[in-house]
């Protein structure tokens, strides 16, 4: 995991401090994220685990949920986005004030997951810009924290490059492979 604390204040031991305004703003913003949870599906259970005392994302300053997009900084898109919900999500994003960040929580929000069909938007980035993707079905709370810390890094540094939480282990390697005539070798 990358370091999440950057030194903002210089020389504070002499009784005065100098910094850049952007650094100070970034430092203030990253520890006071107001969340807008857009929870649509089963990943919501994992979101509850993340926000409740056992994992407790309030430790990272991302405590206050704001159920008005006008007051929120970080949009959590948690779960499958159906085509029918797409206009709602788009509108909520448009109502948010700058600066705003978006996290795709789980595989469905990131790319549609296995809903490869007529109902589902294949990833929220088809509709709105996304800053951090957290893969997993659902992601472990630790992965969500990795994503939250990535967001905080981006806020502090001002870089808006799209980033992904790296999976600890590719779940595909554990799958029992069936019906794969291409890959089968005869003994």
């Amino acid at each position, binding site marked *: 995991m990358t370091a999440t604390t950057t030194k903002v204040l210089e020389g504070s031991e002499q009784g005065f401090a100098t910094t850049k305004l952007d650094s100070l703003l970034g430092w203030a913003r990253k520890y006071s994220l107001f969340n807008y949870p857009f929870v649509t599906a089963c990943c919501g259970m994992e979101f509850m685990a993340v926000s409740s005392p056992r994992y407790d994302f309030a430790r990272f300053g991302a405590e206050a949920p704001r159920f008005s997009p006008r007051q929120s900084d970080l949009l959590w898109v948690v779960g499958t986005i159906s085509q029918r919900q797409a206009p709602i999500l788009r509108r909520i994003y448009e109502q948010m004030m700058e600066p705003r960040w978006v996290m795709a929580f789980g595989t469905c929000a990131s790319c549609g997951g296995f809903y490869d069909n007529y109902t589902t938007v294949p990833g929220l980035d*088809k509709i709105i810009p996304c800053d951090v*993707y957290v*893969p997993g079905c659902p992601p472990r709370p630790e992965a969500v924290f990795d994503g939250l810390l990535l967001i905080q890094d981006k806020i502090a540094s001002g870089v808006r490059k799209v980033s992904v939480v790296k999976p600890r282990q590719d779940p595909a390697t554990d799958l029992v492979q069936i019906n794969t005539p291409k890959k089968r070798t005869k003994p």
Partner: protein
Amino acid sequence: MLEKLQAKLGDKVLETHSHVGDDTALVAPAVWHEACLFLRDDSALDFDLFVDLCAVDYPQHTDGRFEVVLHLYSTTKRHRIRLKTRVGDEEGEHADLDSVVDVWSGANWFERETFDMMGVIFRGHPDLRRILMYPEFQGHPLRKDYPAQLTQPLVAYRTEEDAGMILDKIAPFGGDEGMAFGRKWFDPPGASPGTGNKGGGAS
């Protein structure tokens, strides 16, 4: 049960079977409503609980493409029945059937779903609108001839010009959209995607 239904409706009951204890009757669509009323009101049958209503698309059937399936349960007699009928021609037109909302009000949303997914039109339904898909949606997605890849987005997808960036998926979401068991991965050479034809199969 099935004998009572046959005695009441005669040759309008086209087929019956009781395979593994599931009493099933296929009736003509003309007597659909009458059969439902009889099943509810006959004191020995007394089907007071509506369980499920759906439709199955059989494009190869010539005597009615959509098989509408109704499941009933009697809370007093504790028995079940499955009632079927076939409507619609090969093009999916004229798939009309009498609504049974006036028999069991619980049938309301199930008939709306069947209309939404399959395009079966229920005559006399109080509010036959789409229930799952949005009003702008064209066609009926669970019909076998609905293209598997066809989506109808309500919001136009972002283009690379609008976004000012490359919108390619980044790992691990590339290629098969992050899913090792996705459709593309399973299709062997020679299979045509979306048709259910898996090609030569395992060898």
